[in-house]
């Protein structure tokens, strides 16, 4: 299994993502500059956090037109694992790979804190190693993480079991509808989430609950490809 971490001008969690992938999954992870147009050799594509293009105008709005995004869409189409974290989630929604949009936090402030999450769907490639309804602690750090989707879209998300993470009861930090913290696409191979699992892979960082997200992908991929 091989991972690509996309780097846009202004990405700043790209190195953290590589470190987390390498330390938890022990696989190769390349930093891929946004100008690249071919991602076919990768099994996992991670769109990291940060402030692509300064997040000017709207977060993710400009990055979504980077050359690499077409390749991301292609590989998503082919069923590769794609995960967008924080700014990456914003980019994936702007690009239409995931439904909805991320608005400013209700507090109107940037918020960085340990967030309590509930795993709502433990049968995605990203959550296979968690239990259903497991409570985990993963940090958030965003100013625009307030997930929005209209009623119809929300119904669909629920019906298809696309809601993967919610903020735990009473802990919604940003006002997102249904306390949504992370969703997958219909096919289940594209995940977007505001919390940063790559920042929770070692107890020295305050939590290692994010490790299982990475190892889940490895487990699933091995099963899919009959690798042990």
């Amino acid at each position, binding site marked *: 299994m091989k991972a690509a971490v996309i780097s846009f001008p202004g990405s700043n969690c790209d190195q953290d993502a590589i470190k987390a992938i390498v330390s938890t999954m022990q696989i190769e992870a390349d930093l891929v500059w946004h100008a690249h147009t071919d991602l076919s050799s990768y099994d996992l594509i991670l769109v990291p956090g940060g402030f692509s293009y300064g997040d000017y105008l709207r977060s993710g709005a400009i990055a979504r037109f980077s050359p690499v995004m077409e390749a991301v869409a292609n590989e998503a189409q082919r069923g590769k694992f794609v995960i967008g974290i924080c700014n990456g989630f914003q980019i994936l*929604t702007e690009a239409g790979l995931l439904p909805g*949009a991320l*608005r*400013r936090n*209700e507090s*109107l402030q940037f918020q960085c804190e340990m967030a309590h999450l509930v795993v709502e769907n433990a049968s995605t490639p990203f959550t296979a190693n968690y239990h259903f309804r497991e409570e985990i602690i993963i940090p958030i750090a965003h100013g625009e993480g307030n997930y929005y989707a*209209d009623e119809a879209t929300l119904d669909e998300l629920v019906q298809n079991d696309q809601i993967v993470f919610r903020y735990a009861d009473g802990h919604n930090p940003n*006002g997102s509808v249904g306390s949504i913290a992370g969703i997958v696409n219909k096919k289940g191979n594209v995940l977007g989430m505001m919390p940063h699992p790559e920042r929770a892979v070692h107890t020295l960082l305050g939590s290692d609950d994010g490790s299982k997200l990475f190892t889940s992908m490895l487990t699933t991929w091995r099963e899919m490809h009959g690798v042990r």
Partner: protein
Amino acid sequence: MKVQAKIFVTLKGSVLDPQGVAVTKALHAMKYEQVEDVRVGKYLEVVFDVENDSQAHELVAKMCDQLLTNPVIEKYTYELVEVLA
């Protein structure tokens, strides 16, 4: 011809505008009690060259739909002004 488009972007009516709410509150706290409602949006001035009016309208609509706004949560209106040399 050179045209300046003034583009006004606001959140759709169905989307809560916490910034507007905050500004309203702040104005009330400052005794501007006659203020009823505030909506906060974005204002863009885009200057470009086109041949004629209809091209200008087409261009602005395209830029807005593609990049300048997110139709999931935002709507926009605009005005065009010719920029004289």
